[in-house]
């Protein structure tokens, strides 16, 4: 269809303070695999430096990605072969193996997705598979990363950001990070706190404000 007949996407509205009523069922519900998992913990802050006690974060991992509409569109189901090899983590899949099922048939849970909520102090903690390198459109590799969606009362539209792991060598040459002013780049990098534990804060506004992306 041509752009002139395209429909206008529905407007966003805030998730509000009571989202747990409807969204709790997916919070912390993901299957946790010990091997190859990492934990990211941190705090969400507002412009006054206060923790945000009613934020919800959603993490999307391209390492477990499955094309949403591949059946309809005829896009091939992605396999490990089509993807760069992992440089770290202990759950490297063998070349040619299909990726994990995009959906767990029993629970309906989507692979690669995590939803967490902040506590009364704005703190969160998420455990997920260590991300793997992903393709950049020109064929170069991107450093392993996760896409992060931030929802909260006060956010009329969710925020979009990414998080990288500080101990991945590839972050020094990552094509996206290189385009971000050096003084702000660190806001997207989770610092290692242990072999598979990272610390990362999200600052909605003010000094060291996290880099957010337009969408």
């Amino acid at each position: 269809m041509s752009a002139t007949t395209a429909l206008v996407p529905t407007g966003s509205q805030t998730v509000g303070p009571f989202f747990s009523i409807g969204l709790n069922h997916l919070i912390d519900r993901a299957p946790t695999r010990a091997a190859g998992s990492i934990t990211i913990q941190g705090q969400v802050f507002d412009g006054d430096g206060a923790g945000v006690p009613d934020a919800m974060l959603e993490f999307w991992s391209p390492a477990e990605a499955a094309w949403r509409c591949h059946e309809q569109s005829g896009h091939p189901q992605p396999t490990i072969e089509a993807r760069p090899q992992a440089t770290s983590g202990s759950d490297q899949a063998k070349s040619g193996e299909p990726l994990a099922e995009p959906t767990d048939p029993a629970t309906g849970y989507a692979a690669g997705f995590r939803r967490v909520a902040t506590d009364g102090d704005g703190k969160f903690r998420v455990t997920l598979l260590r991300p793997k390198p992903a393709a950049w459109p020109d064929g170069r590799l991107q450093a392993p990363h996760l896409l992060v969606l931030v929802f909260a009362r006060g956010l009329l539209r969710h925020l979009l950001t990414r998080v990288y792991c500080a101990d991945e060598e590839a972050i020094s040459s990552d094509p996206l990070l290189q385009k971000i002013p050096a003084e702000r780049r660190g806001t997207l990098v989770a610092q290692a706190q242990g072999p598979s534990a990272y610390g990362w804060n999200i600052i909605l506004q003010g000094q060291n404000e996290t880099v957010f992306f337009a969408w």
Partner: protein
Amino acid sequence: MIDQPVVPAAIPGTQPEYHYPPYRSSVARSPRQPLMLLPQTPTESTGPVFGHGLIGPHDNDLTAQCDGEPLGERIIVHGRVLDEDGRPVRGALVEVWQANAAGRYRHKVDQHQAPLDPNFSGAGRFLADDAGHFAFKTIKPGAYPWGNHHNAWRPAHIHFSLFGAGILSRLVTQMYFPGDPLLPLDPIFNCIPDEAARNRLVSQFDLERTEPNYALAYKWDIVLRGSCDTPFEGAR
């Protein structure tokens, strides 16, 4: 400059700005630095796929989740989930939550002096069918006061959360009811500058789908960003 296709920005006026002072909570929670451009890579063009295992037997009937029936005006809400090309988003996960008929949420933070309804959880979820259709039964939520400004009341609304063709199709929004006198006064509804886009958040009364002697009906179609065929390719 980014040398790759980037995630297209929204059509001006059709989405809220983050900083919207009439909605007080947005002031300290909205970024002040300019948003950066995000390239379209496999991370952006893929998304989670949820299945029927997530959906329980009464998740699409909020009037049948407890021992008794909730108080209030029974309604059927239905519509379609479409992509920007007007094609159905098959299997889209839709999550809903709302206040009860008295305008009270089953949530510890809700201090409104209105009664809870022991027969109403206020939560539902379902998957759109192959034609993008969804339908659920509930009771019409009540308006409720909030602390944004003196004598502030939220118009009756149902919160919606949707997953579409890719993670960038993600949408959280609210559905309103036609003719609500609180709509022109509500800063959250009015945060969308474009009048036509704003009014598309208001459902339509649907006489055809009412069930005589049982329930009224409202119709609301939802358009998610991107396309099922080519997620986020070809900026407008």
